[in-house]
Structures are given as C-alpha cells and as structure tokens.
C-alpha cells in the first residue's frame, strides 16, 4: 500500500493578540460584591486576560466567546459587549474579517473550524457564495465505493497528463532515445503563488518553501529571489523567469522541476530553449484572466504549453476590463471552451486570485479548474491582517519579516492541513475519493442562478402564465473528459 498523505499540524500560537470580534466593556459602579461574575466565567476570560501594552490590546477580546453570561448576571450591570472596531475594520469587502480571522485560527491550530448552531451567515452572496456543493444520499451513496477518509486523495499531477508516457528526446540530436514524459505530482490541489503587496524577507520565503516541501506542493517565486538558502527545497520551487535573456538562469533551470514564464510572441522559441536546457522541466505559463482568456489559452495550448496559470485580481475579478466578471464564472467558461475543442486534457489549468477559503478550492475545481493558487491566505497565516499599508515608511503591525522560520513553516503547514481536512469533508460528503474526479463536475453542485430559475422563477416569475407542473430532469454532470479529437 502506498504511504498515505499525512500532515502534522501542531499548535503555533500567534505572536500578536488576534483581534476578537467583540470587546468587553466595563463601566463604573462595581459593587465589589461576593458573587462577581468575573469569577464564574465559563472560559476564565477574566483570570486569563492580560493587557499587552506594546500592542495596546486586551486579550479578553480574543478569549471571550460571547456567551453573554457576565453581561446578564452582573449585579451592578456594569459589563457590556460591543463590536471590536479593530476586528471589523480588517481586510475589505471581499477579504472579510471573518475570512481573515478564520484562516488565522486555522493557521494557529491546524484544525478544521467546527462550531455548534446552524449557519448564521447570509442566504447566499456574490461570487463563490452563490453555489452549494452536492452530497450523496441513499440512492447514490458513495459512488466510488465504501472507503474511509484516509483513502480520499487530494493529489494531482501537473503537466501534459494525456500526452504519451514517453517521447523522443529533443536534446538527443535526432537519435532515437526515449524519455519519460515529465510530470510533477502535488498532494493538494493548491499551490503557493507569488506573495502579494511587496517583497518579503528571507525567513518568510524560507518558511514558505519549507512548508511547500512538507505539504508536497509548489511555491512560485521570482527567479531573482531564489538564493542559496532555498536550495534544499529546490524541488518545490517554481521560479518565475523574467522576460529576456535566459543565460543567467541556466543553472537554476537545470535544477528545477518546473519554471514559470510569461507568454510573448516568441513563446514557442522560448519554451524550446528552456526544454533544451532541461528537457525534464515543466513549463507553467502565467497569464492574466481577461475577457480574451479563451483565445489565449487555446493558442498557448496549441503551442505546447503544458500548464497554464490564469490569474484574476486579488478579489477574484477579471483583469483588463471595465466590467469584470468573477473568476468562478470564468473558470466554467474556460473549462467548457476547452472541453468543446476536445483539448481539455492536454493542458492543466491553474486559477488564482480570490481563493480565500478551503471551500473556494473545492468550488473552483467543480467549475473546471485542475488546481488553484493562493497568495493572501499564506500571509494571513503569518498573522497579516491585510491592512494594505505595506510600505517602507510604515512598519508592519505584525512584523511579518521578523518571523522565525520554523514558526512560520508550522503556521503555513497548519493552514494547509486545515484546508486539506476541509476538502476531505466536501469530497467525503459527495462520496468521491479523488479530487481529480471533481473537476468540472458542475452537475454535482447547486448554482444559485439555476436553482432560482428551476424553483422560484417557476413559481413567482410570471404569475399570469399557466405553467404545467413538470419536474426538471436531474441535472447531469458535464462531460469532464471529452474524447480526444
């Protein structure tokens, strides 16, 4: 039996007091009574609380679980709760305080977030919040058979999956030598993208690289940043080569399993040149997600690109257009376009931008991505609050550059472990045992616009129309693998 993929999350406490959503406010008029509610707190918030003068933060706000007992039991009525502005001002409309807070807790504990009570959020929302994933029930239980969680695979191969296993070696000068077609396997369907906002210190990069190795995924970083310190993790690094002369990167290309390039007019020549330096290397082509992405992807795939990395902006929106569509819709478009052309399995599609939670990974894959890339969640795991003030003049409020490498590595590993665990939940609920089976399975999801049309538009849409009551057929899964043409 092959070894199972197993991560080792370990608690990695925050260096800074994480802002809690609600603060405790103590008014005047304490009666100094014997039955002080501070002593009976179920979570010992008041015994454990400390004031950190350096951070100007009260730990009570993050320890308190909002049970309201102190507020409701205090004899003097002097305790009250309120929203903590420090928490609610984190991030932006897309990267909400809840998303930041949840990822930070996952990076701290390495566990799947579990809670009691039902879901307290909105009915639905924009973007990824307008779809639900399917589950299996009675008539179609686990379609992959009976299995335990530990047998669910979240891994996939990047590269020209459906090309022949062996091909003639272009570097052999016409002699008939065959070599194995290169493939790189990752154990989770998400890779680490370039860190956003600015350049980060060596300890940050080293922490990420070590985490990438430990979790068996990949880390994209500028080729110039690949220094000697990172060489032990070279197999998990994907240097992004700048346009222009390749000579100075020859040794790097020889050491790597994958490199990333930008497309230009001479891309075919450039790909050939890189393959001559290292025939085993896999090429990732980095392109923006624009309204023209369909043509671009088709062109690149015909030119022999093996993996295309398509990037929306940080909030998952299309780029270079005044009316951007959301990445979820665009993944579906691009996937369907390639399926139609019969080329879907000749190229691996990795999408990035706006992937903020584990659920987004599953949903992006259902829409048609092979894998996704993440950036901000990596920084969030190092306590970044997305304050957006990354400049040399203003010091980072959580001093990310000063992280200890082993702590940073553990935090990122914890985040990956928590996301991996959540993917298993989703796959398990669907009765699937391989994440590769999830790709493009739009029939195993519920899209709000479809179900609205099927149910509510049918009932409330046009009151005047007499509508025969007719059940819709069960939505069939899209053909995920069209036959090769």
């Amino acid at each position, binding site marked *: 039996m092959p070894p199972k993929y197993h991560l080792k999350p370990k608690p990695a406490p925050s260096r800074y007091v994480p802002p809690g959503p609600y603060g405790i*406010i103590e008014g005047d008029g304490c009666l100094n009574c014997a039955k002080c509610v501070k002593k009976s707190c179920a979570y010992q918030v008041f015994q454990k609380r400390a004031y950190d003068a350096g951070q100007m933060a009260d730990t009570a706000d993050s320890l308190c679980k909002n049970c309201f007992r102190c507020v*409701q*039991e205090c004899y003097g009525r002097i305790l009250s709760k*309120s929203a903590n502005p420090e928490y609610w001002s984190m991030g932006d409309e897309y990267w909400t305080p809840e998303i930041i807070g949840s990822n930070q807790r996952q990076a701290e504990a390495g566990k799947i*977030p579990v809670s009691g009570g039902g879901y307290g959020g*909105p009915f639905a929302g924009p973007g990824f919040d307008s779809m639900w994933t399917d589950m299996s*029930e009675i008539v179609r239980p686990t379609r992959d058979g009976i299995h335990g969680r530990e047998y669910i695979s979240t891994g996939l191969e990047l590269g020209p999956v459906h090309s022949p296993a062996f091909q003639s070696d272009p570097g052999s000068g016409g002699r008939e030598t065959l070599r194995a077609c290169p493939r790189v396997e990752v154990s989770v369907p998400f890779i680490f993208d370039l860190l956003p906002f600015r350049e980060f210190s060596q300890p940050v990069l080293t922490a990420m690289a070590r985490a990438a190795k430990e979790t068996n995924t990949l880390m994209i970083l500028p080729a110039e940043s690949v220094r000697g310190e990172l060489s032990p993790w070279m197999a998990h690094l994907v240097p992004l080569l700048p346009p222009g002369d390749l000579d100075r990167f020859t040794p790097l290309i020889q050491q790597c399993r994958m490199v990333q390039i930008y497309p230009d007019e001479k891309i075919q020549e450039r790909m050939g040149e890189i393959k001559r330096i290292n025939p085993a290397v896999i090429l990732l082509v980095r392109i923006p997600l624009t309204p023209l992405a369909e043509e671009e992807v088709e062109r690149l795939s015909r030119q022999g690109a093996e993996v295309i990395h398509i990037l929306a902006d940080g909030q998952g929106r299309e780029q270079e257009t005044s009316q951007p569509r959301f990445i979820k819709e665009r993944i579906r478009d691009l996937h369907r376009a390639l399926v139609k052309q019969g080329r879907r399995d000749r190229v691996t599609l990795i999408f990035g931008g706006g992937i903020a939670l584990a659920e987004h990974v599953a949903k992006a894959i259902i829409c048609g991505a092979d894998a996704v890339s993440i950036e901000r969640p990596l920084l969030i795991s190092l306590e970044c609050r997305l304050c957006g003030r990354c400049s040399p003049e203003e010091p980072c409020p959580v001093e990310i550059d000063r992280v200890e490498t082993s702590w940073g590595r553990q935090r990122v590993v914890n985040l990956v472990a928590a996301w991996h665990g959540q993917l298993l939940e989703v796959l398990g609920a669907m009765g699937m045992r391989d994440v590769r089976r999830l790709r493009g399975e739009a029939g195993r999801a519920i899209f709000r616009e479809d179900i609205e049309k099927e149910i509510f538009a049918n009932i409330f849409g046009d009151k005047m129309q007499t509508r025969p*009551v007719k059940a819709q057929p069960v939505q069939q899964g899209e053909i995920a693998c069209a036959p090769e043409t």
Partner: protein
Amino acid sequence: MLRRPEIKRAPSRYRNPVGKFKVQRDKRCTHCGLCAELCPRGVHQRMGKRMLSPRDEWCIGPSCQKNEYYCIRRCPQGALRMAVNPNLQALRDHRWPADLLLSNWQQAETGCVPYSDLEYRIGRSGGGFDRLRLRFPQTDPGELPAEEEVSTALLLNRREDRRPRVQIGVPFYGGGMSFGSVSNHTMIARARAAMAWDTFTCTGEGGYPESLKPYDSHMITQVATGLFGVSEETIQRVRIVEFKYAQGAKPGLGGHLLGDKVTPAVARMREAVVGNALFSPFPFHSVYSVEDHKKHVDWIKEVNPRCLVSVKVSTPTDVDMVAVGSYYAGAHIIHLDGSYGGTGAAPDIAKKNIAMPIEYAIPKVHRFLVEEGIRDKVTLIASGGIRTAFDMAKAIALGADGVVVGTADMVALECIRCRNCESGRGCPRAIATTDPEYSKQMDMEWAAQRIINLYGSWVKQLVTILRLLGLRSITELVGRTDCLIHLDYQPEEIDDDIKPYLTGSNGKSA
C-alpha cells in the same frame, strides 16, 4: 380538538435580561417612584423605598415618545436615559438577528407575539424565507373564519397500511437532539412541551434516557448511522421511529460528539468510553441502495408493528429522487433537513456550503411527488432554518405538510447563538451541556413552560394567518404558493404583520 395547555409567565432566568433598548438611571434619582407608576409595561419597579434596576426588555424605545407617560421626559430629576442597547452589536447573526432572538424570548416568556416593533417574523439572511412574504387577500373581517373553526392538526400516516393514523395537534414537532449534545433537562423540557401540545419531539442519536419514559407516547426515537443507544426495546417504546440518513447542517458527514462532552452519564447511555470523542459514520454502512433502504425500513416495521417510519434526509441535487425512493421503501414521513439547519457541532465548511437551502428543496420535492401521483400518500416535513410561525406558514405554502423545529426551542431556553455548543464542557448557558454543574443553572419546570409558551404563540399566529387567508385548516395551505410573494420577483414591499389581528395581551401592558 386542539389541546391548549396553560400559558404561564416564565421570565428570563438571568438577572439582566437583554432588551432592544437600554434604560439607565443615574445618581440624580430620588427614588420617588413616579416612573414606576407611569410605565404600563413594568420597565420601572420599586421595591420598598428603592427603585430596582430598569427591566430593559420591556422598554419600547423611542416610539414611546408620543405617550404622555414617556418616562425619560417625565422624570422630575432628569435621571433617566434610554438608547439602543449597545450589546446588540455583539449579536451579529443573519439568520437570527437580535430582533428575532428578543422576540422569541418574549414569546417564550408570555406566550404572545412581542410588544412594540420588534421583528418577529423574519431574519436578515437576504434570501429564502427572509425574502418571502405572505399575501393576505382583502377580506371583510366579518367573513373571516372564526378562530375555533380553524384546525392546525396534521395527519402523519397517510399510507392506509393499517398502522395507527397518528395525528398531531399542531403542524410542527421537535427535531432530534441527542442526550450528550443537550442536557437531560433540555430533553425533558422539550418532551413536556410536545406532550402538552399533543405533538412529538425526538431523542436524536444518543440513547433514550429512562427519564423520558413518561413521555414515550410523544417521543420519536432516532436510528442514525452510529446506532448509539439503539435497541429493540427503544424502538418498541415509541409511535414514530426516525431514520437519520443525514443532517442538514453537515450533509454527507457523520455526527460528532467531542470527547469533553462524553461524560460518564453520556458514555453509559451510548455504551462508549468516557472522554473519547464519538463519531457517527456516514452513510449507513448497511445501506447503499434504495433496496437496502427498504430492508432497513422493513426491519424497523418488524420490530415495532405499530410505529410509523420517518426518513430524515438532507437536500442534495437529487433530493426529489431520494424522497420518492423513500416513499417506495415504505416511509410514512419524508423529512427534509435543509442545509442551514442547526447542529451541536459541525465543520463550518459543511454548514455553509453543502447541499441546498430548504426553501428550494420543498417545492422541488412537492412538485415531484405530485407528478408521481403519491403526494397524498406521504407526509412531507421540512426543517433546517424554521425559526418562526411565519417560516412555518411559508414552508407549508411552498409544499410541506408540516415542519420540524430545533434551534427555536433552544432559543426559548435563552440560547444566544454563541455557537460554542461543541467545545469544552459545552454550553455555558446550560442548554447544550451534560456537565453536572452547568446543568444546575436551568430549572426544568421553567424550561418546559418557556417552550410551551413559545408553541402557544406560534399556534395563535398560525391560526390568525390561516384566518386571514380565508382557510380553515393547515392542510389547505399546502402548496398554495399563490399565498406567497417573493420580493426578488415582485419588488414592492408588502406588510404581512398580523399583530393587529391577534387577540390577547402582550407583555406587561395592562
């Protein structure tokens, strides 16, 4: 004939109940007692020569300004202040916003819909029930059916299979909550309320405590994937047995009771080891097809020849097929649990993302059962986000026969939805805990009365809704989508407030 248990006041068990507004009395107060004489709602009370702390929960806020008894203006010393309660900032739940919690608490205290303008019908989730409105035709009040003429009874067995024709007095019953996830007190309180209103409540999957013996006639026992505490004896005790295939809050995942909550009592009941986390697997490892499912149902029917069988499923894309399959396997009740349902512990990713909300599933299944020609042979029950009497009416108008409630019962016991049911010793408010020390915080009599009161308020509202729709029975409302408006499709806001039509006093007003 509908059983009508006595409504008795059951005030908050906390010293400082949470109100929408906060009234403050400062040092200038001379304890003259004028405010206590003025306020008809009992916000101000004097004990002996001293004023007590204001009862915030009865204050109607700025809308009181028009009254000549407005205490803030009348206080001779100017010692009173009133403002929106800042504590409400910490109750940010879209499905259970502060207004809905407060209005549930008031109903549980008084058995009446709340005073003033607290929202008691919908939450703020921005979709589903919260975007649906009831549409009442313009009718002369004289032509409305009389209250006594309106029936809220619901028949649970429509199969004509010689099993008992079990009927409940109200179109709702209590959802499964296991011993372990909630306390013994909570279970008994729910059972008493169910008995008082001639309906049911469910043991959940965690054994059938002996303390529930007196309520056997109004209990449903659950057979779920872990089979915790299930024996032939427990199945033979009840009139309804429920198969839990899945739960809306965690569809496709098993149940999970964290180790801390496995106390000696819980471990004994579940035949497990103290302190060890307990998992119910998913799915039933003996059911991988509808044929297997039928065997399952037959097994229960064999063990208890008098019971009805309910099948609880969640809401995948093919929920309609699941429902039909369950019917052909012999189920009397198809219970759909929507994706936003409650739980003692579930992964956040599952609560938010897996399976569809109940508002879509009800019409989908209803329509399919009609098409199959079996709609009148099976009872369709909906749950997973039913918070108010209005949610019930909407669910039934969308096509359900009745509903199941869970979280609303907990809120009546003053659950504040902090969502820490799963951790440590469980609920610090003594509802979802089996910790012996915590459990003491709640009195059983009080708890039962709170739920009885809440149900009483719901029944009053349901009767009024039916009257305003010109209907004489809750069964006439099933599938009547013409009684509903969806604001996404018909953007004019309509007011379906029924308070003006409700009889009886509310709150402390004279």
